[in-house]
């Protein structure tokens, strides 16, 4: 995946600008204003997150901007933060454009200070300055720039204010060397400890064959995980002699743990700078619009009710709004298939083109509307600031089950599609929380399983109860996910979940253009990652059902009965028997590995009783088929709800965890869980009915 070419081919006349800043600082809006529409995404070595880049000409010079993931700190905590840090360290941009939320100056300057320690040239954009000024905060940008030794420009990204000045400052800064940042500002203790650590590093093997920097020494002193690991790796698993002693000396001297002390000292510097440069012309308002909304949104009763209403609305809107386009696409692909069928004579080729290729592409694309609508709604909720509140409300419950409040967003997306759900788990800070979330997310019923439920529940339940049964089937996912997470936490991943130290950003009206931009990015990632796999898997399943080639006069059903898929179905039939399912259901479940919606079409071919009227719907055929009764229906629905997700999900798990081990683990445990749950449900059904 990694193509370093975009960055590594350096042209001296191009200024490479990394855009970095806190989440919610208006970073992406400013990036879009700076670059316009000429964008591309790429993967960079060491960075697991897609980095979008865009170009711009300014006064005859060429600038390339890289939009880094939002980060609160360089002491990387989440994958996003680590990606931003590694990009700056490894790609060595000419300038870092640090986007700062002016209304939230002190916390944003913490990141600025850390960037300055790196000695990369930094330009600060005091963004959303209009909001700060409205709130009565006046910032002396020039003086602040002098103190931090880096230019500061006032901007309003959404109104394109200050863009020219910002570009001027970037071009000018790129031409100069950065002012060296001195650790002495953090007090004599840190300075001494850094000197001792630097001396120790100087005598050891270095990780990258260059002399150790003051920055590296500072990172060692603040017990930075990434930097410490780098030095350990090249020095036989130990920090160089004297480095650990330097940190311990500091901790003894100040009576505090080094990371806590160092972070506090940075805030000391920031408080001094702010005292000198920021003037409050009116006192802060007691009741902001955000606090008024939160009085409801986070209310112990109304908050929870509101949360359930919002989620139900998103859910409902996703399936109703996407229904017509899904139907159009399905009809379109069906028509295309018929057209192709009428033009191709060779039966094998015809089958390949119609059932394999067109069916496969159709399967992927007809699913896209659900993804688009769900992404759009989730993005709007994220941009508005509500998703952080949802995590706040959910954490108390999730935490008890070994998940994290922020696991909620990926799991919710899982109701649409498991692939983006697994990718969304990147927002989770700790690797363990992220892994547990990834492992349980396939249990949430994705949108592709709905047609199966609709078919079977519709065929076997009285119409007045079908909605309740559907709801129950959907509830199975979260219940199983919680229980499984608790089990994993008690066995595989012991220990506390990671901290829930999270910003509750002010509510903002989401912009449609901003939302579309995120949706586009997410959709592209989905099509790129899932599309290819689903397509390939569809071809594979087609091959299993189409070979060995049947006799020319065989019916569709006869053809399928002697295919490899049927042979596989027969092979697993003994395992299916205790669930009240026969080989046909087995074949359908195997075909569901490619994509869940294929289960329905496979059943459509298999349950084709000769005695039934030729125009009978699949629903009626299922009901009339002697081998499939209400008890089989219960087993099948429960099994489908929990068993192995599609190949695209498995491929995504491989990509996101970097290991086949977890792919095998998910495949194994979900099948086992599905079988046990289906068996219990079946026995319960036998006892009751």
């Amino acid at each position: 995946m990694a193509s370093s070419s975009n960055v590594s081919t350096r042209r001296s006349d191009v200024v490479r600008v990394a855009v970095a800043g806190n989440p919610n600082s208006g970073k992406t809006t400013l990036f879009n204003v700076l670059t316009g529409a000429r964008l591309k995404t790429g993967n960079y070595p060491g960075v697991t997150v897609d980095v979008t880049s865009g170009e711009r000409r300014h006064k005859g010079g060429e600038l390339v901007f890289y939009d880094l993931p939002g980060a609160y700190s360089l002491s990387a905590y989440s994958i996003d933060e680590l990606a931003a840090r590694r990009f700056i360290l490894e790609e060595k941009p000419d300038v870092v454009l640090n986007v700062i939320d002016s209304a939230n100056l002190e916390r944003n300057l913490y990141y600025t200070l850390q960037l300055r320690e790196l000695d990369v040239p930094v330009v600060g954009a005091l963004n959303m300055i209009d909001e700060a000024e409205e709130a009565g905060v006046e910032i002396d940008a020039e003086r602040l720039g002098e103190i931090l030794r880096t230019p500061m420009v006032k901007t309003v990204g959404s109104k394109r204010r200050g863009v020219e000045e910002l570009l001027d400052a970037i071009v000018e800064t790129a031409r100069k060397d950065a002012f060296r940042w001195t650790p002495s500002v953090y007090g004599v203790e840190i300075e001494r400890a850094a000197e001792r650590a630097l001396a120790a590093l100087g005598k050891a093997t270095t990780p990258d064959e260059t002399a150790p920097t003051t920055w590296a020494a500072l990172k060692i002193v603040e017990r930075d995980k990434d930097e410490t690991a780098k030095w350990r790796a090249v020095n036989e698993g130990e920090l160089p002699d004297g480095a650990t002693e330097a940190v311990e000396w500091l901790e003894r001297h100040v009576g505090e743990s080094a990371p806590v002390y160092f972070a506090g000292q940075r805030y000391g510097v920031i408080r001094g700078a702010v005292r000198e440069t920021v003037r409050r012309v009116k006192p802060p308002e007691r009741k902001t619009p955000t606090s008024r909304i939160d009085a409801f949104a986070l209310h112990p009763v109304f908050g929870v009710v509101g949360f359930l209403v919002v989620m139900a609305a998103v859910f409902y809107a996703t399936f109703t709004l996407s229904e017509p386009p899904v139907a159009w696409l399905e009809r379109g692909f069906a028509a295309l298939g018929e057209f192709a069928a009428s033009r191709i004579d060779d039966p094998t080729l015809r089958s390949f083109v119609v059932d394999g290729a067109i069916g496969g592409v159709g399967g992927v694309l007809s699913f896209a509307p659900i993804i688009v609508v769900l992404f759009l709604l989730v993005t709007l909720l994220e941009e508005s600031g509500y998703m952080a509140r949802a995590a706040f409300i959910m954490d108390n419950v999730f935490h008890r089950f070994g998940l994290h409040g922020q696991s909620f967003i990926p799991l919710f997306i899982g109701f649409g599609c498991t692939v983006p759900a697994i990718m969304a788990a990147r927002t989770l800070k700790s690797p363990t929380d992220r892994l547990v979330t990834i492992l349980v997310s396939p249990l949430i019923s994705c949108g592709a399983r709905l047609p199966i439920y609709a078919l079977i529940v519709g065929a076997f339940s009285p119409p007045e109860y079908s909605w309740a049964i559907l709801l129950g089937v959907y509830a199975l996912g979260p219940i199983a996910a919680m229980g499984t997470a608790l089990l994993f936490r008690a066995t595989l991943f012991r220990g506390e979940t990671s901290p829930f130290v999270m910003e509750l950003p002010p509510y903002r009206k989401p912009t449609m253009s901003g939302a579309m931009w995120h949706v586009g990015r997410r959709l592209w990632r989905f099509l790129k990652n899932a599309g290819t796999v689903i397509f390939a898997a569809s071809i594979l399943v087609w091959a299993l059902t189409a070979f060995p080639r049947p006799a020319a006069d065989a019916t569709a059903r006869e053809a399928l009965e002697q295919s490899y898929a049927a042979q596989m179905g027969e092979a697993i039939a003994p395992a299916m028997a205790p669930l009240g399912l026969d080989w046909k259901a087995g074949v359908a479940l195997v075909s569901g590995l490619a994509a869940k919606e294929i289960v329905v079409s496979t059943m459509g071919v298999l349950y084709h009783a000769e005695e039934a009227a030729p125009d009978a719907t699949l629903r009626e055929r299922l009901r009339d088929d002697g081998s499939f009764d209400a008890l089989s229906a219960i087993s099948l629905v429960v099994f489908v709800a929990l068993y192995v997700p599609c190949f695209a999900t498995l491929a995504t798990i491989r990509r996101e965890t970097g290991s086949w081990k977890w792919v095998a683990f998910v495949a194994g445990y979900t099948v086992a869980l599905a079988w046990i749950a289906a068996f219990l449900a079946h026995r319960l059904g036998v006892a009751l009915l």
Partner: protein
Amino acid sequence: MKHLGRRRRRRGGDEQCNRRRAELAGTLTVADLSEGEVFEVRRVLAEGELGRRLVEMGLSPGARGAVARMAPFRGPVQIDLLGYSLSLRRSEAYGVVVERIDPS
């Protein structure tokens, strides 16, 4: 809820640890405050990555904040500080030693 509460106390090693540390120091923590109270951070007792993150998000010694909300059932705490809102779990709030400030 009672049942969950019992299990939580047994499992919540972090919380216990931080609370014991705070008790030993005979001090007041963010978790001991109630809604609307204003405080000044004295010291962060939580160590390692949690301690680092708490300070990085603005709970540095000398910083002032106010408790905006305490979620029921020992849920998370919402704090207003540095012009923004921060949420943390009750167990994490025990790691931040504060002094009560008269809001006026």
